[in-house]
């Protein structure tokens, strides 16, 4: 069975600082990997996804994530955060194929201070 761990429930950074949100997964096969963001009173929006190939994937709004098979990780990064990045970020995995369900982590609440 797959599982996702986001070890940081809350992260606070200053505007303009760099950011890393951690995600570790457990799966018997290499899964598809996703980062979603949830702004207040909004649904989840896909930031980026990894299926195969280059382990560094680019997403929207300057976000990127790096897949590491050896570490079973898929950390999210941004070089310089903006106050509007404040939201809840969810890491998720799917093994694809006929199983199309997403397994989510608990989420990390990001607060960007001005």
């Amino acid at each position, binding site marked *: 069975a797959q599982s996702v761990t986001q070890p940081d429930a809350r992260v606070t950074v200053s505007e303009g600082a760099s950011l890393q949100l951690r995600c570790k997964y457990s799966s018997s096969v290499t899964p*598809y990997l996703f980062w979603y963001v949830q702004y207040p009173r909004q*649904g989840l929006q896909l930031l980026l996804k990894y299926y195969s190939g280059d382990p560094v994937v680019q997403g929207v709004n300057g976000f990127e994530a790096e897949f590491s098979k050896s570490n079973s990780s898929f950390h999210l990064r941004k070089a310089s955060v903006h106050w509007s990045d404040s939201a809840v970020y969810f890491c998720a995995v799917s093994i*694809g194929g*006929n199983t*199309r*369900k997403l*397994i989510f982590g608990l989420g990390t609440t990001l607060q960007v201070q001005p």
Partner: protein
Amino acid sequence: GPKVLQIPSHQIIDMGQMVTLNCDPVSNHLYFYWYKQILGQQMEFLVNFYNGKVMEKSKLFKDQFSVERPDGSYFTLKIQPTALEDSAVYFCASSLEGEEVFFGKGTRLTVV
């Protein structure tokens, strides 16, 4: 971008009564999903639906739960009868294929 609409955003229901949560998925999507999120806990998969049939369901998808999408209209989640532990935010989602899944804003269900 494509939007999944959920109606209503909040619903309060007496325990034991029936409730139907409505979802208007993205128009050309083929796969439909419901997820459940209890406050402070992770979002958990309930069920996915394709071509008029349930493809997969989790252990959270109790016998009191059912889903349907009659005539390509709303994709609904019905709970009959409701229980206190059904209180949660229910997210509807849809996808054309399986990879990029679009989510609605959720319906907060409160069973009293």
